[in-house]
């Protein structure tokens, strides 16, 4: 028994040592935690890029990208009336200095429109050295966090050299790392000293048993002396006077102080990029074959553009299944979320302008399972969504947002 306890304690001790010396890395941000139908049919990310993978403290990395807000928004997820484009990092190891949505500076929350197309830009300034996995992600009110793709970024240098200065409207330059700290601590110390003095005033004398005994024996008057009462009266008068005096002084020192700002930014979507009328995709049937981890989709594609087009890729929940027979940008075989040969099309020929063609596609890869999207058919809403990328011979891209119910096949 004793040996078991010893082993148990030793295990905890070793775990604590491991945690304290483990590299400062975050390996996951819950990107697989949200139910598949939410990851596939809310924020549909694409073209997300980072300007650099290695930088020094005080340098900036810029994250840019685009997303489409799915038309087939799940009924069980509240509409995106309040959303916030955030960054998944382990605490403020970077600070966010700028953020733009559709080119518009954006500091608060915003409502998104279903079917809307948006592009974003986030400027991050390195604050603490380390190696971090950075995701842009959307906080959706009452729904959760829909992660965008992640990227490793290495920060080197000395944390002590980090600077972050902000200028107030009156022109005062403020060091955000230390502003108001000494003032705040000083006020706390002052009140803690006064509070401690009051406590010591009472604690220095015999306390519980003697006082209880005297109280019960009717000697209550001896427990509070006239000096105690005088001090109490002094506190009753001086403390409020001092508090309101300090308040008035602070008020006169900062006459332009304003309340916290609580606006909801209004940002309109871009002109349609996805489902812009050039290509129309109607999903006919979709089956997920569990044993081979393949999403088999049958779609009717109508080409309204004036160029012949071919299917290049299918993207959903940050996974990309690439048609290897088509030369296209963004293949990026090193990306662990890209299945470089993952999209197989049965009749992979050009769809001519004006032509309507029924196509069978298979998006097959173990990624469905490793990214925990294969649990879709156990969700309350077994519908899938994603973006279908099509290209004309000149390389011009057409994007269609698709959605379909999914039938599982356990053969």
């Amino acid at each position, binding site marked *: 028994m004793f040996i078991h306890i010893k082993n148990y304690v030793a295990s905890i001790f070793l775990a604590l040592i491991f945690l304290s010396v483990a590299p400062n890395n975050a390996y996951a941000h819950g990107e697989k935690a949200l139910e598949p139908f939410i990851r596939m049919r809310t924020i549909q990310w694409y073209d997300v890029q980072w300007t650099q993978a290695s930088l020094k403290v005080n340098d900036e990395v810029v994250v840019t990208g685009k997303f489409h807000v799915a038309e087939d928004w799940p009924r069980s997820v509240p509409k995106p009336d309040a959303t916030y484009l*955030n*960054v998944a990092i382990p605490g*403020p190891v970077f*600070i966010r200095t*700028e*953020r733009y949505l559709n080119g*518009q500076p954006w*500091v608060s929350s915003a409502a998104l429109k279903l079917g809307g197309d948006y592009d974003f830009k986030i400027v991050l300034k390195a*604050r603490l050295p380390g190696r971090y996995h950075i995701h842009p*992600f959307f*906080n959706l*009110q009452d729904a959760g966090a829909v992660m965008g793709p992640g990227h490793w970024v290495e920060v080197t240098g000395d944390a002590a050299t980090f600077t972050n200065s902000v200028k*107030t*409207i009156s022109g005062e330059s403020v060091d*955000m*790392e*230390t*502003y*108001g*700290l000494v*003032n705040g601590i000083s*006020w*706390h110390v002052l*009140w*803690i000293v*006064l*509070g401690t003095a*009051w*406590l010591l005033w*009472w604690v220095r004398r*015999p*306390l519980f*048993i*003697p*006082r209880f*005994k*005297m*109280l019960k024996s009717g*000697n*209550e008057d001896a*427990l509070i*002396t006239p000096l105690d*009462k005088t001090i*109490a*009266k002094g*506190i*009753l008068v001086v*403390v*409020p006077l001092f*508090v309101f005096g*300090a*308040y008035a002084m*602070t008020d006169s*020192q*900062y006459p332009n*102080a304003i*309340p*916290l*700002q*609580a606006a909801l930014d209004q940002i309109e979507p871009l002109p349609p990029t996805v489902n812009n009328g050039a290509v129309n995709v109607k999903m006919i049937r979709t089956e997920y074959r569990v044993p081979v981890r393949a999403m088999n989709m049958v779609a009717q594609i109508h080409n309204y553009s004036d160029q012949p087009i071919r299917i290049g890729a299918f993207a959903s929940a940050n996974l990309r299944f690439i048609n290897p027979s088509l030369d296209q940008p963004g293949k990026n075989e090193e990306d662990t979320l890209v299945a470089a040969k993952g999209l197989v099309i049965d009749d992979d020929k050009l769809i001519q302008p004006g032509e309507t063609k029924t196509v069978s596609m298979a998006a097959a890869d173990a990624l469905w399972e490793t990214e925990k999207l294969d649990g879709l058919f156990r969700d309350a809403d077994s519908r899938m969504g994603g973006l279908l990328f099509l290209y004309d011979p000149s390389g011009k891209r057409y994007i269609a947002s698709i959605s379909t119910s999914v039938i599982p096949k356990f053969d």
Partner: protein
Amino acid sequence: MATTKLLDIPPQPYTGEKARLTRAYDYLILVLALFLFIGAFHLHVALTVGDWDFWLDWKDRQWWPLVTPLMMITFPAAVQAVLWTNFRLPLGATLCVSCLLIGTWITRIFAYHYWNYFPINMVLPATMMPSALVLDVILMLSNSLTVTSIFGGMSFALLFYPSNWPIFGLFHMPVEYGNAQLTLADVFGFQYIRAGMPEYLRIIERGTLRTYGQYATPLSAFCSALLCTLMYPLWWYLGTWFATIRYVKTI
């Protein structure tokens, strides 16, 4: 002579070994109480006041001065009920708030700053010490639950905002940022990334006090004062109810 008189403090019902033992018992209880209230009151405030006390950009004019005193008068009332009723010790509120501040500062420095990298100025806690001192002396001078509930409860709430404005007022300086007017506190919230704290989660400046123009704070403070007069006796009786030797007797 004056010094001798100062140190000649009541009560002194015991002498010798008895006095030494009762004093040892005092220290034992005090140390236990210290850790108990650091943990329990700190947990209570973290769960009920929470983000309003954690972050600069939650300390608004409407909800912060309403929620904080209301949730922080609880333990002081209960502990006062025990210490005043049984021992005539008027230090329950100050003791609770001191313990709370110890716990809060430990958390802000070690959990928020060293563990999660937030600058300490962004997570400065509020102080309730002036309110606690006044609550203690009102109970002591009045020796009345009714008077303390009304005047102590009101003072506890009304002193909160002015006590803390010297600490936090400077963070309300306006800044032009991202083509908008923000306070410095808002800029902290935008810049220092909190993955689990999107802006829309902030419960700030929401309510129906708009009809009173820009003077929301006094109204919130008086609303809190009214509620504190009710919360104080409620927790006083909770303190009385829990402070029992009913179970000890059966051992």
